[in-house]
């Protein structure tokens, strides 16, 4: 489980949740921040998946052994 991606998604949700409270002239900050955090969460998740995917060579070697 990628805890960093979850943290970024929570930050995006918090920023979006504050949108109605923000003054109209500053609401764009909430929008940009939410979008940025969603992008960071996706990038973090992609990084997590690529780091935890077993290498192709390793999989082949284990097949040969079996």
């Amino acid at each position, binding site marked *: 489980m990628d*805890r*960093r991606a979850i*943290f970024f998604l929570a*930050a995006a949700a*918090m*920023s979006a949740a*504050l949108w109605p*409270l*923000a*003054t109209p002239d*500053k609401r764009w*900050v*909430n929008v940009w*921040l939410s979008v*940025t*955090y969603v992008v*960071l969460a996706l990038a973090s998740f992609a990084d997590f998946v690529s780091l935890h995917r077993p290498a192709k060579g390793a999989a082949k070697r284990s097949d040969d052994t079996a």
Partner: protein
Amino acid sequence: METFALVFVVAVALGFDFVNGFHDSANSIATVVSTRVLSPRLAVLWAAVFNFVAFLVFGTAVASTIAKDVVTQEVLSIGVIFAGLIGAIAWNLITFWFGLPSSSSHALVGGMAGAAVAKGGGHVLLLTGLRKIGVFIVLAPLIGVALGFILMIVTLWSAHRTKKVERLNRRFRHAQLVSAAAYSLGHGANDAQKTMGIILALLIAGGHVRPTGEVPLWVVLCAHSAIALGTLTGGWRIVKTMGSKITRLQPVGGVCAETAGAVTLFAASHAGIPVSTTHTIAGSIVGVGSARRLSAVRWEVAGRVVWAWILTIPAAAAVAAATYGLVAAL
């Protein structure tokens, strides 16, 4: 008698500014000291100089927000502002004693609001201004986290050909002087303006400045001098929390955290939003730490900091309201 009271409360406001510099100096120099780029003595001198010269770069939009957008002008009096300041100073000293990096800015807003409500009731609060400040209590550290994380990733990616980490850190040791200067500039701009706002409110309440008037130059110079002197005196308990307890920083991380903090403060000062310099740098440090891995951030310390943030406004408001009760009874 009224002139004496006015001069006395201006002196208390400048005292608050001094304590603010003393309390927040850690934010400006924590990474420089913890990565041993400068000695503590030189680091505070470096930060104090840039705290002072900030008035040459930034306007007074934050001062205007504090003076005119927190409570209605009619409720402002010397007694209310004095009580608000006492609430903020008392809370700053309590958190300083416990080594918690709470926000001087939110203590000030909480103090002003508490004293004003004690005098005039809930309707004296200006909700538009408080909404603007309140939303950025949360957004400022989140912006710091995002910028700190992005800067750290971009920096590490652009330097990935450098084989030795020691060589990379050596290169960034001197860059930290620039980033610490930028952060101190932002700190001076945003925090000194809060005191300017308090003094402006006092002068408006006393009829010395028109309600639509600008901040007089002597107020600007006094506020920047007070915060610079406070920074020069320094506060070492909080340096420890900010510099090493949230996450251990290398020079490259220090540069990214301070640059992220400085950019956030420049933007907030330009937009007239009083944000917490403490929140901002703490967020930037968390962002830089989480670029390595999320477990590099010591969340129990970050959690204590968050509790100090949550408690600041109500605690400062309660002390200020009690102080106003005493002032009114005298």
